């Protein structure tokens, strides 16, 4: 009875109870917000798919695309021509700036330092970020994938093809 009628005690319990409520609610808010607020990061998968699509375009079943190298003759391509040839569209109504970058380099097996054909397409601003990513991986920078493979032309001349792809889209994949 004393405890119930003690008004000072009631007040202390009320404030204490209110403080507990704030802490619990704050905790739940925080946890739910962090859990649901973090977007799924699919940029690495996207960069891998882009690399595979480009690889299929420049060399299918181990043979270099004749539109690029035919009988040891190299056909220079602009970025736009390359995107059209490979059925890629890097422009989107959803994004103000281009979110993709592709660089394809063809090397003769005899000289792996100087590419005989270098094709660049997309937003080359991401290239600098790829260099930073090599040293230390940072989530808010574009995700870059680099792959290389071996291919031959119609006359069985051998080439090494290096593909570098970068996917921006940080706003959609990372909590900034």
């Amino acid at each position, binding site marked *: 009875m004393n405890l119930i009628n003690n008004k000072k005690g009631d007040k202390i319990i009320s404030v204490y109870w209110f403080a507990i409520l704030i802490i619990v609610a704050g905790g739940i808010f925080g946890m739910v917000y962090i859990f649901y607020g973090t977007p799924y990061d699919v940029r690495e998968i996207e960069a891998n*798919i882009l690399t595979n699509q480009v690889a299929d375009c420049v060399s299918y079943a181990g043979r270099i695309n004749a539109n690029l190298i035919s009988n040891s003759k190299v056909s220079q391509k602009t970025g736009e021509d390359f995107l059209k040839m490979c059925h890629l569209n890097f422009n989107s109504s959803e994004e103000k700036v281009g979110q993709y970058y592709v660089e394809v380099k063809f090397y003769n097996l005899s000289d792996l330092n100087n590419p005989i054909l270098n094709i660049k397409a997309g937003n080359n601003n991401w290239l600098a970020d790829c260099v930073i990513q090599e040293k230390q991986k940072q989530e808010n920078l574009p995700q870059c994938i680099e792959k290389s493979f071996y291919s031959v032309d119609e006359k069985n001349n051998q080439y090494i093809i290096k593909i570098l792809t970068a996917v921006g889209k940080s706003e959609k994949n990372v909590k900034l």
Partner: protein
Amino acid sequence: MKKRGTILLENIIFIILNLVFLTILILFLFRQGSGAIVLEQSYAKNIALLVDSAKPITEMKLNMEDAMNLAEKNGVAREEIVKINGNVVTVKLSSKGGYQYSFFNSVDVTAYPDVSPEKNYIIKINGYK
């Protein structure tokens, strides 16, 4: 009499604040727990990646049972759930907004709900643009 009135006022304020707090908390949890935002994002990205990796003349059936149930609950028609305009996929599971994600594959895509089973969505790659 005056003192009793003060106690009553304090209690009323305390109860009102408690109710406000709990209401905000429940609303927040219901909003997040309904999963519309999370599912919209998940399906939009999923479909964009499927389209990116697909070749022309491909038909994909995507089980969207949870998304369709949620859309039905929120009053969104089945035909309105997935929209593909240009190279942007939009998934809408609630009356507000929707989530958009772009794809790079330059293909002509159509998306429509399956007739049977009803919980599937068909993504059809018709050809290159």
